[in-house]
C-alpha cells in the first residue's frame, strides 16, 4: 500500500497585473490627481496582496477580471511516495507557480495542498550564493538555505566538492569563478540534497554537456532511490526517462495526467502549427508565375507527421504545375535546422517535363537528422540556372528524440545523427595472430 506524498485540492493562485494608468487631459486634472496620488497609490499597492474572494470564483483561469489573473486554477492531483512526476507545459502554463506553492514560497489564493515530509525545492541553482564568500563558505550557506543541516553538509562536504570538480578553487571567492564553475558548485550542493520530496524547476539546463550528463545521472539515482520527485522541465527526453508519470498543464489547469510517453505526445501534438502540409486550391493564390506554379507541398511519414521521431521514415512531396511544355526544370531545397544551420541542399536532375501537374518526391535517408525543428526552403529552377520560384518557409517539421537508452538525457549535439557503425576490439591483435576477424565487434546506434 503506497502512501501519499502530496495531495493538491482545487489549488488556485491569482495575481494582479498592473492596469494602465489613467491619463489626464487637463492641467487641473493632472494636478488634482497628483495631490490625491498617495491615496490611490496606497490602494494600488495594497491591492497586490488583497483579492476579492467572492466574485473571482467563477472566472475561468487565465482570464482577467479587472486586473486579476489566475496563474493556476482548480488544480487537483495526488502524488504517492516514491513517484517521480514530470510537469510539462508551455511557458505561462502555471508550472512554476505550482512548484512555488508546494515549496511554500507563495500562498495559494484558493484551495489547499497537503505535503507529507520535508520538501527540498530547487527553483534555482545557487540561491543565496554570495560572490565575496569562498566556495567552501558558499557550500555551507547554500546548503543550509536549501534545508540541510550543518552536520549533514560536514558529512557530505568532500563528496560535494568532488562532484563539482573544482577542488583547487574551494577557498577562492566565488566571484573569481567562471560562470560555469559557479553553476557546477551550486548544482553539486543541490544534488546532495536529500529531502523526502524534491521539487525541481527547470534547473538542469545549466552547465556544459558533460556536467549536464552528470546531473541527469544523479537525478535518476534520486528518482530511483524511492524519493518523491516533482520535476518541471522542457527536456522531454529527461521527463520520459526519469519520471513514472507526467502531468500536462495548460493555461493554469492540468490537462492530462498519465504515462509520460502519452502525455509528451499529447503535448507535442498540441504544439505550434508546423507547416507539414500546404495546398493552394485557389489557383489565383498559387505561388509562381506564367511558367511554373507550386500546387501543394507536404511532409509525409510512416508516423504521424506531428510526432516524428529519429527513426521515422520521412519523405517530402511537391506538386508543381508546369505551364510550358518541355521546359527543363529541376527542384532544389535547402533544409535548415532550428539553429539556422543549413543542414543540406538536395536537387533533382534537370529534365524536360511535359505540361501539367507533376509530383516530385524526395525520400530522406533513414536515421539522418537529429532532433530539431527543420524548415524547408524550396526553389524551382529552369534550365539549371534560372530560379523561377523561391519559397523560404515552404514546409516545416519537427523531429523528436523520444526514447534514449543511455544515462544522458540532454540535447544531443550536432546537425545530423546517423547510425554509425562502430567496432570495438583488442588493439594488440598482432600477438593473437594475423588474419583473424576482429573479435568483440558490435554496432552502437550513436545515441
Amino acid at each position, binding site marked *: 500500500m503506497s502512501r501519499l506524498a502530496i495531495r493538491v485540492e482545487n489549488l488556485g493562485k491569482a495575481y494582479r497585473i498592473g492596469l494602465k494608468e489613467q491619463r489626464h487631459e487637463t492641467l487641473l486634472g493632472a494636478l488634482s490627481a497628483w495631490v490625491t496620488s498617495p491615496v490611490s497609490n496606497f490602494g494600488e499597492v495594497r491591492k497586490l496582496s488583497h483579492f476579492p474572494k467572492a466574485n473571482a470564483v467563477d472566472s475561468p483561469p487565465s482570464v482577467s477580471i479587472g486586473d486579476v489573473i489566475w496563474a493556476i486554477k482548480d488544480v487537483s492531483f495526488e502524488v504517492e511516495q516514491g513517484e517521480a512526476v514530470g510537469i510539462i507545459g508551455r511557458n505561462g502554463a502555471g508550472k512554476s507557480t505550482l512548484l512555488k506553492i508546494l515549496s511554500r*514560497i507563495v*500562498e495559494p489564493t484558493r484551495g489547499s495542498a497537503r505535503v*507529507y515530509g520535508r520538501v527540498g525545492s530547487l527553483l534555482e541553482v545557487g540561491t543565496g550564493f554570495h560572490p565575496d564568500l569562498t566556495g567552501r563558505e558558499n557550500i555551507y550557506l547554500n546548503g543550509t538555505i536549501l534545508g540541510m543541516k*550543518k552536520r549533514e553538509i560536514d558529512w557530505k562536504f568532500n563528496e560535494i566538492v568532488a562532484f563539482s570538480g573544482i577542488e583547487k578553487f574551494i577557498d577562492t571567492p566565488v566571484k573569481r569563478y567562471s560562470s560555469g564553475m559557479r553553476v557546477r558548485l551550486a548544482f553539486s550542493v543541490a544534488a546532495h540534497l536529500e529531502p523526502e520530496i524534491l521539487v525541481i524547476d527547470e534547473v538542469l539546463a545549466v552547465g556544459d554537456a558533460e556536467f549536464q550528463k552528470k546531473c541527469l545521472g544523479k537525478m535518476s539515482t534520486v528518482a530511483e532511490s524511492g524519493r518523491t520527485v516533482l520535476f518541471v522541465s522542457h527536456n522531454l527526453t529527461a521527463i520520459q526517462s526519469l519520471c513514472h508519470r507526467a502531468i500536462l498543464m495548460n493555461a493554469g489547469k492540468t490537462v492530462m495526467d498519465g504515462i509520460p510517453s502519452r502525455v509528451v505526445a499529447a503535448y507535442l501534438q498540441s504544439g505550434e502549427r508546423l507547416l507539414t502540409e500546404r495546398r493552394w486550391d485557389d489557383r489565383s493564390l498559387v505561388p509562381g508565375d506564367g511558367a511554373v506554379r507550386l500546387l501543394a507541398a507536404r511532409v509525409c511519414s510512416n508516423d504521424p507527421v506531428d510526432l516524428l521521431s529519429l527513426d521515422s521514415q520521412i519523405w517530402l512531396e511537391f506538386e508543381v504545375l508546369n505551364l510550358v511544355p518541355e521546359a527543363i526544370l529541376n527542384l532544389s531545397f535547402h533544409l535548415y535546422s532550428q539553429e539556422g544551420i543549413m543542414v543540406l541542399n538536395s536537387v533533382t536532375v534537370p529534365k524536360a517535363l511535359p505540361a501539367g501537374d507533376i509530383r516530385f518526391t524526395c525520400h530522406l535517408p533513414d536515421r539522418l537528422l537529429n532532433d530539431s525543428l527543420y524548415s524547408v526552403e524550396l526553389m524551382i529552377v529552369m534550365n539549371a540556372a534560372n530560379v523561377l520560384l523561391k519559397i523560404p518557409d515552404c514546409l516545416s517539421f519537427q523531429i523528436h528524440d523520444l526514447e534514449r537508452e543511455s544515462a544522458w538525457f540532454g540535447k544531443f549535439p550536432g546537425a545530423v545523427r546517423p547510425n554509425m557503425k562502430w567496432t570495438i576490439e583488442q588493439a594488440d591483435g598482432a600477438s593473437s595472430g594475423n588474419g583473424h576477424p576482429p573479435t568483440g565487434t558490435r554496432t552502437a546506434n550513436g545515441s
Partner: protein
Amino acid sequence: MIETPPINSHLPPAVPTHPTKSTTLPVVIIQSKSEWKLIDWRECLEYRDLFYFLVLRDVTVLYKQTILGFAWAILNPLFSMVVFTLIFGMLLKVPSDGKPYAVFSFAALLPWTYFSQSLSGATGSLIQGTSIFTKVYFPRVFIPWVPVCSKLVDFAIALVMLVGLMIWYQVAPSKNIIFLPLLLLLLMLTSAGAGMLLSAMAIQYRDIRHAMSFMMQLLMYAAPVVWPASKMPSEFRIWYGLYPLAGVIEGFRAAMLNTGPMPWDLIGMGSITAGIAFLFGSLYFRRTERFFADVA
C-alpha cells in the same frame, strides 16, 4: 499560511506490521489563511543552522575587500564622537554629567550606532533578501533578525574602543556593569521588533525606505546621545522612558562611566515598549509574510 498539526487522521491508518518511516512524516497544510500568529520557535530551532550561516555571511561579507576591515566598526562612532565633542561639548557646552564629553558621547554612541545600524539593516533586509526568499522556504523572521545579530560584532569591537577611551580619560566603570547584557537584550528586542514591523511594511510600501534616513536622525536627537537625560524635566521623565533608547543609553553611562545609579525607571518603561514592539512586530510580520513573495 502554514500549520503543522500533529500526525493524525490526514494519513491513512498505519499498517501495524509495517511501521515504515513514512508514518512519522510531518504534514504541512498549505492554504490561504489570514490570521494573527506568533513566532514558531520550534521551527526556528529546526532551522538554526541556516540562521547561523546567514549571520556569518553578513559578518564576513561586510568588510571584505576593504583596507581598514573591522576598523570601520570603530571609525564610524569615533567620527561622530569627534564631531559631537567639537560641536556640542566644546562649542555649545552641553553638560555631560561631569564626565569628559568624548567618553560621555561615545558611551551613548555605542548603543545608538548598534541600534541604528541593526534597525536600518533589518528594515531593508526583506527587500535585499528577495532573491533568497522567493526561491526557497525557511522561517521568514530570520531575515530581519540577521542584521540584529550580525551588527553585534561591530558593537563588540566598538566596546573595546570604549574601554580604551575610559583608560585614556581615567574613567572607572561602576559595578552596575553586570547589567550590560540586559541593556543589550533590550536593545536587540527593540530593533528586532521595529525591524520586523518596518521590513514587512517596506517590502510592500517602499516609502519606508525613503523615510528611514530622516527617521533615524529624529530618533537620534530624541535619544540622550548628545545630551544627558538629566536635562529632561522631571515631570516628563517617566514618559520619556517609553523610548527604550533613553533607558539603554542612560543605563550604559551609569554602568560604564558611573554617572549615577542605574536609571531603572527609564529602563522599566523602555522594557514595556520593547516588549510591545517585539510582540506587535512579530505579529504583523507573521500576518503579512504569506504574500511577501507576491509583492516583492
